[in-house]
């Protein structure tokens, strides 16, 4: 196990090595980002967790199919949608959020980033704070379901990484969203 962890750290460091003047965060960035906006070239869009993290996790998930990758499991859903100017997790998403909270409680090695987003209307910085409020609402609901603070980070993309392009209500609805990213 230790060997694997060191190897993961080395890989993470090597990947970040290109920007040597950047002060590195103490923890490695998420290995996988399946929900990144389509505009960003994603090197590994495969749903299965790639690289070292798989071997780190496999003992706890045993031989069964990872529920995160099972389309029939509620954990396969990772997006929470919000109404205009609203930041509370709607009733229809509470089961989803609770399931992820419980999954994290049962799998203390897993970590998530919760990425908040807004529609395109308004200023960049204020939207960043609004997206943060959405991500934080999801994070708190997951904490209530048992996820530890150390397993979660709520961040915001504001209006900067819209999943849906366009300036109509359909696009705006799609972009008022928080994604749970393992």
């Amino acid at each position, binding site marked *: 196990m230790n060997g694997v962890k060191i190897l993961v750290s080395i890989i993470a460091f090597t990947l970040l090595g290109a920007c040597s003047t950047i002060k590195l965060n103490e923890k490695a960035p998420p290995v996988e980002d399946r929900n990144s906006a389509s505009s960003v070239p994603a090197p590994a869009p495969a749903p299965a967790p790639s690289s070292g993290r798989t071997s780190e996790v496999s003992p706890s998930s045993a031989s069964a199919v990872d529920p995160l990758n099972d389309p029939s499991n509620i954990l396969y859903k990772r997006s929470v949608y919000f109404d205009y100017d609203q930041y509370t997790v709607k009733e229809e998403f509470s089961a989803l959020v609770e399931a992820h909270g419980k999954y994290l409680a049962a799998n203390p090695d897993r970590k998530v980033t919760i990425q908040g987003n807004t529609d395109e209307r308004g*200023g*960049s910085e204020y939207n*960043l*704070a609004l997206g*943060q409020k959405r991500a934080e609402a999801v994070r708190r609901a997951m904490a209530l379901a048992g996820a530890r603070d150390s397993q979660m980070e709520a*961040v915001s993309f504001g209006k900067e990484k819209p999943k849906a392009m366009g300036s109509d209500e359909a696009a705006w609805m799609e972009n008022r969203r928080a994604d749970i990213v393992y």
Partner: protein
Amino acid sequence: MMASPKKRIFLKSLVASSVAAGLHPIAALAQLRVEISGVGANQIPIAIGQFWDDPAGDNHVTAIIAADLQRSGLFRVIPSSDLVRETGAVDDAVWRSKGADALLGGSLTQADGRTEIRYRLHDTAKAVTLTSSGLKVNPQFIRLAAHRVADDVYEKLTGIRGPFATRIAYVARSGNEYRLEIADSDGENAFTAFRDTEPVISPAWSPDGSKVAYVSFNLKKPVVYVQELATRQRIAVANFKGSNSAPAWSPDGRRLAIALSRDGLTQIHTVNADGTDLRRVATSNAIDTEPCFSPAGDTFYFTSDRSGSPQIYRMTPSGGEVRRVTFNGSYNISPAISPDGKLLSYISRRDGRFQVYVLDLANGQETRLSDGPRDESPSFAPNSRYIMYASESAGRAHLAVVAVDGSSSYTLNAKASKIREPAWGPFTK
């Protein structure tokens, strides 16, 4: 009035590093096109004669000066094909008959690989010389020197320091590429300070113009960086858990105000420009973001939704004496304070349209300055007389500049890029 040696070295290294990085084709693409869309009523008519030995082309000094003065909205440039030197007698009656209250003439002299620009500004009504001066520069700084001549003319005729020999920062997007670009105030000489496939927002100039703070999403979350423009060295000054954003410099350039969500909600903090000594400024149970310092450093302006909708507030640097500043409309964000401390600009949403407003802090009078459906990010010129902002309509994103009295305006367009998030840099020596 020569550029100081330090300044020259600094600018030279910028040019050298963009060449080294192979950025020139892109820099050329990024040149902005200026369109003047409104002019003031009380303009000073000035005749600008052709400077002697002024070579045509991008560095045509006469044209650069004329374009600066015209764009400012304060002058009506009377073009002249006559060659007018900075020496010799002026026939005031002839120039007055052409409608000119002032006449600018000059000459260029090449010596030892450098160019000397000499010029004279003459008052044709009083028949007196207002200024007669010269600058000697290396070839790559001819445009800068021309802007300095325009600054001098502007100041002599209006009593206000000229804004032309300054720079702007903005974010350009083409396809999946985001570039933080630095250009002259007229959009020329653009170069890329930072590029990435993740968004960049909120550039902010250090008071001495040597660094830019900005927010990059390159770590899959917003992180605040400070980048030295001459060396391209950058450090993450705020990379805490959660989102890090909205950098603003203290007037002495030693600290940054930033918005952090490390404790849950977005709240205002300050940190040294090297990332040390983080302090939380105030605690609210609402969003507090977009801090900016008053020029004297004794007041923070910021955006907060503590009243239920976003409004602009002010407080002391230690978080005390919080007062609401905006009361009209249910959405007022992005405060910017003029360098003279007299005006507050912000974006207000009225009837679903996001537009630039300016508030006179002395008498409380509010004026709308833009009419776009989606205007953002107001930033004052260092002479407090203009506001640059981002404007978007029908999928086009450009920069616009409006005089603070609304009397004139112009736009800066990039051919192949969407440009937004402007920040007008400080005066430089």
